[in-house]
């Protein structure tokens, strides 16, 4: 009883902060999503409009287009980060000259604010004068123009996200890999398993919880990407990179369409939870059942 009370006392500051900065804003957004409110409308008051905002979403071509490009962005960005992150984690487990230096350099993007990352990539990819289009033009005669080509803009946003967040995946997977026991690997080698078999049947299942946690974190982050993309392309060209986060930002802040923007936010939260749940069911639940 005594230790239970002490536990609650120790937890209390965190719970209070979480309540005011997490639960209250969420409830406020949920409440707003059932209202119409634009402070710059002729009538700036908040008016209850039932499920109208959610109904409008279904027919909003802008939202549906954003949803489509966001799913593509999340798929390519998170998958690339997992593959590259795993390969880098394996590389950093081996000894090679300058390993500490490369590991530090590799981690640096993580400490940069997203808005700075967006600014740097904007400078690097400005058509004609940015260093990347300039080198691609000089070396391969390739014209990279993120202001006109939807594919180029989409690809650059994916590459930028991979550059920024792969170190997180690498660090998580390094931690997971070094904590694996040596016995199963030695036994597999004695039994004649090749590298591919060891990876699929031993390494992957054993790091699956860490991998899944990383995927969840990256999935949630990628679904709400705003700053970097807004800085780099503004959501353009056209609506090619108007991802859901950017769509919500433009709906809520410049357009001050608070009710509708809140409804979109709630839907994105719902999609995030469903995506994570599906991943959990597909990857972890079957293993638990077997066990």
């Amino acid at each position, binding site marked *: 009883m005594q230790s239970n009370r002490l536990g609650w006392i120790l937890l209390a500051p965190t719970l209070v902060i979480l309540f005011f900065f997490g639960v209250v804003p969420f409830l406020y957004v949920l409440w707003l999503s059932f209202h119409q409110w634009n402070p710059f409308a002729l009538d700036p008051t908040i008016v209850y409009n039932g499920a109208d905002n959610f109904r409008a979403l279904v027919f909003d071509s802008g939202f549906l287009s954003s949803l489509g490009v966001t799913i593509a962005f999340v798929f390519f960005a998170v998958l690339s980060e997992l593959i590259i992150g795993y390969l880098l984690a394996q590389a950093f487990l081996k000894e090679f000259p300058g390993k500490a230096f490369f590991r530090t350099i590799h981690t640096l993007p993580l400490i940069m604010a997203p808005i700075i990352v967006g600014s740097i990539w904007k400078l690097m990819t400005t058509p004609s004068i940015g260093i990347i289009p300039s080198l691609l033009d000089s070396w391969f005669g390739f014209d990279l123009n993120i202001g006109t080509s939807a594919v180029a803009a989409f690809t650059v946003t994916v590459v930028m996200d991979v550059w920024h967040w792969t170190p997180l995946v690498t660090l998580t997977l390094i931690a997971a890999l070094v904590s694996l026991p040596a016995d199963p690997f030695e036994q597999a080698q004695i039994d004649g398993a090749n590298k591919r078999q060891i990876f699929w049947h031993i390494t992957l299942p054993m790091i699956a919880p860490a991998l899944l946690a990383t995927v969840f974190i990256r999935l949630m982050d990628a679904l709400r990407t705003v700053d970097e993309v807004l800085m780099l*392309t503004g959501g353009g060209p056209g609506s090619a990179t108007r991802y859901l986060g950017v769509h919500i930002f433009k709906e809520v802040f410049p357009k001050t369409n608070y009710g509708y923007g809140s409804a979109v936010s709630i839907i994105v939260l719902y999609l995030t939870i469903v995506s994570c749940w599906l991943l959990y069911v597909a990857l972890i639940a079957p293993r638990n059942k077997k066990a």
Partner: protein
Amino acid sequence: MNFAYRLSVSAIALTMMTGASFAQDIQIQNSEWWQNAGQKFDGVTLRGVTESTPASNYVADVLAPKFEELTGIDVQIETTSWDQMYDKAIKDMEAKTGIYDMVYIEQDIIYAYLSRNFLVNLTKALDENAELKAPEYSEENFTSFVENFRGEGGGLYGVPMEAFIKVYLYRTDLFNDPDVQAAFKEKTGKDLKPATTHADYAEIAEFFTEYGKANDMDLWGTTAQAHTGHPASWYEYFESVAPTYGVYNWGIDASNNYAATVENGGTMNSPEAKEALKWWLSMRDIAPPESVQSTWTEVATTFAAGRAAQGLVYGENAAWIATDEEKSRVVGKVGVALPPLEPGVMEEAESGEGYIGYYDGGAFGLPVTSKNQDAALLFMQFMALPEVQEDWAAAGSRITLTSTYDTAKVMEVDKELGGYYSMLRDDGKLFKGAPEYPFHRQVIEATSPTFYEILTGSIGPDEGLDMMAEKAEAELKNLGYRK
């Protein structure tokens, strides 16, 4: 293209993003009054938020420290991007958090702020607090631009701190080069001089783009503020190009139930609007490649880097482009002219029925939610003192007091700028700020996705403007302005 050159252009862009610093020494005539006035605000810190522009950077870097030195009142000015500035200011005033004591009010947002009662009536506040009124401060000192910031009863709701027109800049070294003149004459049969019509402007632009290509130069015929995902492109078309074709106030007729479509009495999708858009798109196609990612800042950078022979450039950047050798490659090579026009537009502007381009600027307003209103009133008057204007005007291409035109530095820069300040004084009346609507960003955000699709070629200009006009009306109906 020379790689080192490209890097240097990027470096100019980087310099622009980090802002500028100034170190002029300002002498305040009645410093004793300011010292006394500041005494009762000991320990007060004023916080302001503004867009990172040359004029605002001067406030943060020069005026704020000088004010603190005089009065002991600490002033923290946050200079940030245009979007962030609005985001922070509106959230603060909407939520009544009282973080900011001064907010930048661009001319086009004042009507929205007034409709929400966000701002303090400065005229009234100073009348009611006579001990706070600086002896040298007078609303009579301001240029006519101050009228943009008056509200109900004629009260002033913002102290103008920058004012400029979007001008037609051109490269005097190119336009006056005998070889270039001869080549132009040979190609077109005309003398090379700043254009007065769109056809002439296009001819000059095409000539210089071809000239740059033929001579392996990084030179194009025109600038274009044609970002495919930022409202800067929307602004360039509706506020700088469409008016030169006789399409005013974004093509929305406020006196006719806020009609935007031709069908209902608006002009957003009129034949003139469509012609203007096609002309502008054709200019965009022969502008430097970075134009599709350019907002107002990058357009200035492009011109300063010597990559365009002519262009429409915000006047706030004109001074540094023409005079700052650390940032500009075209110092002493810049001329100014009025924008090219369609026949009849100048007559409409002179009669007050229309305008020929964009008159922009902003003021510092005092939010009603500020917790330090009295101290903020002091700083805002300080910004309007005649003795702080001269260096500020030279550094930020901005003039808000009539007396500033006659100061030595302004007259000197005016010569280097080919008469920009003279144009601002003499022809400023031909330009106009944004329309007096309280729903700026709402209409822009409702229509800009379609505008960006026009820019990428996914939708044709005619069809696109039709769609935009319909969307504008739908949004205005949704907001309750259109019945």
